[in-house]
């Protein structure tokens, strides 16, 4: 029985504020575990988890694996290229094979929106979405929120911009949903070819002009630009992209306040963000990585029945 209002974590669009608060609160208590000399608790001993990665991922997979190990769960790793599915094996076949092994919880990364939701329809196990195409990546958004909360002590009332390729990002939607639920004002900024149509109907501000919005912001979350987007004629050149949307020291130095800078990684240094900005004291990029482990521990714990937010660390 989940300690949250939902059995699975498929996305943040319909996740209530109370669940997000509970995950974050529990994650802060797990952060303490990560600072101990022995960084392991027996919380999920006897539980079997499977990491289903249908597309390559380094950071998210390592972060989940570490979270699972810190909680003493038994884990299986399953990797398959999405192309093997197009050769006749259906998603359901794969899932049923996995479930026949009596798994308690499955973490799925897939390149197609809805894959995690579909999985949850087929299996009894708890499902966590570790990124389904350009749909949601809820654990990334939760770790982003944890990092913002760590920095400011609160999320509500903050003005937060998500900058870059919103349309092809797996991070943007979950951030929008989660941050808005927690009371932040969200602006998306990038060239129009990177902004999905109708996104303002999700309750965000839209800007194509970075320099106009930066003075208003408290936090900027900078997304990675995939170089292949140039070939699909979405942007004319990386050079112009950097000129219009790159987060440079020069651009930030004209502001009369310091912004908190986030990036889900991996970074294209010199394209969407310059090295001296990414490595500056206002960047919380490495906090995000550490918080990612804590948030995933929190979520695994709560979805598999952990009750007490504070007790998580000592369970």
């Amino acid at each position, binding site marked *: 029985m989940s300690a949250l209002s939902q059995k699975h974590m498929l996305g943040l*669009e319909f996740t209530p504020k109370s669940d997000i608060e509970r995950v974050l609160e529990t994650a802060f208590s797990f952060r303490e575990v990560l600072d101990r000399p022995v960084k392991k608790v027996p919380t999920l001993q006897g539980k079997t988890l499977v990491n289903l990665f249908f597309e390559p991922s380094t950071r998210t997979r390592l972060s989940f694996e570490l979270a699972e190990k810190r909680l003493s769960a038994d884990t299986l790793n399953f990797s398959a290229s*999405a192309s093997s*599915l*197009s050769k*006749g094996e*259906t*998603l*359901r076949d794969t899932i049923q094979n996995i479930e026949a092994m009596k798994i308690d919880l499955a973490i799925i990364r*897939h390149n*197609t*929106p*809805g*894959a995690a*939701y*579909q999985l949850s329809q087929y299996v009894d196990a708890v499902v966590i979405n570790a990124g*389904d*195409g*350009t*749909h*949601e990546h809820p654990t990334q958004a939760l770790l982003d929120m944890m990092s913002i909360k760590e920095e400011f002590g609160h999320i509500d009332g903050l003005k937060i911009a998500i900058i870059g390729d919103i349309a092809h990002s*797996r991070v943007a*939607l979950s951030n929008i949903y989660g941050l808005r639920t927690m009371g932040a004002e969200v602006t998306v900024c990038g060239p129009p070819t990177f902004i*999905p*149509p*109708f*996104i303002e*109907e*999700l309750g965000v501000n839209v800007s194509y002009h970075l320099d106009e919005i930066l003075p208003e912001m408290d936090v900027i979350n900078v997304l990675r630009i995939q170089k292949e987007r140039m070939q699909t004629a979405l942007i004319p050149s990386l050079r112009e992209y950097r000129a219009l949307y790159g987060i440079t020291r020069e651009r930030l130095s004209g502001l009369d306040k310091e912004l908190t800078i986030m990036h889900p990684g991996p970074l294209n240094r010199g394209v969407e963000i310059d090295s001296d900005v990414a490595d500056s004291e206002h960047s919380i990029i490495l906090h995000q990585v550490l918080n990612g482990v804590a948030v995933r521990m929190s979520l695994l714990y709560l979805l598999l029945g952990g009750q007490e937010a504070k007790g998580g660390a000592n369970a």
Partner: protein
Amino acid sequence: MLNTKQLTGKLLLKDGQVYLPNSSKIEKRDLLLENGILKGMEKSIEVSDGMEVMDCSDRIISPGFTDIHVHFREPGQENKETLKSGTEAAVAGGFTTVCCMPNTEPPIDTQESVRFIRQRQEELLAEIYPVAAATKGRKGKELTEYGEIAAAGAVGFSDDGAPIATGQVMRKALEYAKIVDKPVIQHAEDLSLKADGLMHESKVSTALGLPGAPAISETTMVYRDIQIAEYVGARLHIQHVSTAGAVELIRAAKERGVKVTAEVTPHHLMLTDEAVRTFDTSTKVNPPLRSRKDVDALRKGVADGTIDAIATDHAPHAIEEKEQTFDLAPPGMIGLESALGVVVKALVDSKITDLQTVLERLVVSPRQVMQLPLDFYTLDNSANLTILNPEEEWVFRREHVHSRSANSPFYGSQLEGRVKAVIHRSQLITSE
């Protein structure tokens, strides 16, 4: 299971409300059949000895429905559907005539392949007319042999499943089809604007992270094709219209006398893009389920006659194909068995239009589009009737399906209006 009963002797369909296409009225009539042949249709026919009587007092009797857009997958993909299973699904849904699309494997693009379909007539429960490919191999380049193919029995030409993409080929197709006075039937979609779209481009597609196909990918093609058809003076039929913009273009074209006709599917009259939120791959259709505004415009288009025909675009797919992720699943849903219930609910129950108009779009205008005989209730001919209860509320379930495939998002939906029986080729066919 379908029950078929050979009609012998005299059968009196008593006290039914009969849809009369010529006056577009529904009036009480008694119909007398002898060995399945229509022998009488009067306001009242006396029951006499040896006459079997079917009480139709809570029934509507209509000429058999015609569906001008089905995919029966034979030849080539008989695991999904055959001509036999497809026509069984058709009569279960009240359709005694269907026009099958040419995107089979190989495609229906020669007179021989048209004859292959036509020669199967006698063994099938429904009348079947093939639509032949507009271009060889449906590749959009060279025209098929319209003269010979039409002579073999094709009722129109279409590359359905894909549009005739280039304006030049569309022009040639429309010009050449004038030889046989058959419609060029267009799956109107600009593929470059559709790009990798998997659903309607909207707030929902953005929220789901699914690439969208904008409404303009349909409207720009409809606009182009109407312009060409008007220029060359040929007959153009637009398949599965899904957008408010296309309805407007067709309405304006008809007003200025362009020979354009159009069809809409039951699912585009009922569902919006919100249905895709479940990621149920049976909601993946082409064209995609659109917005509420589009659905309202389509309903209005049916009511005012801008849209001529209701056609199911019955598109069977194997379970294993649909049990994939949304990007890999092929587009399409089955629709024959649920059609009446969906359409009555979408149009009559919601007071958009009346039952007569719905029946007109299922019976008369589809046949006009394809220039099929308008031989309704002809005495001394084999009776061709669909008997229905327009007010029956029922829940559509998997066991109601006679198709070899089962890809429908309507399972569990409460529908209104149900086909009770079909009389065709001297057989009484029921599915209950």
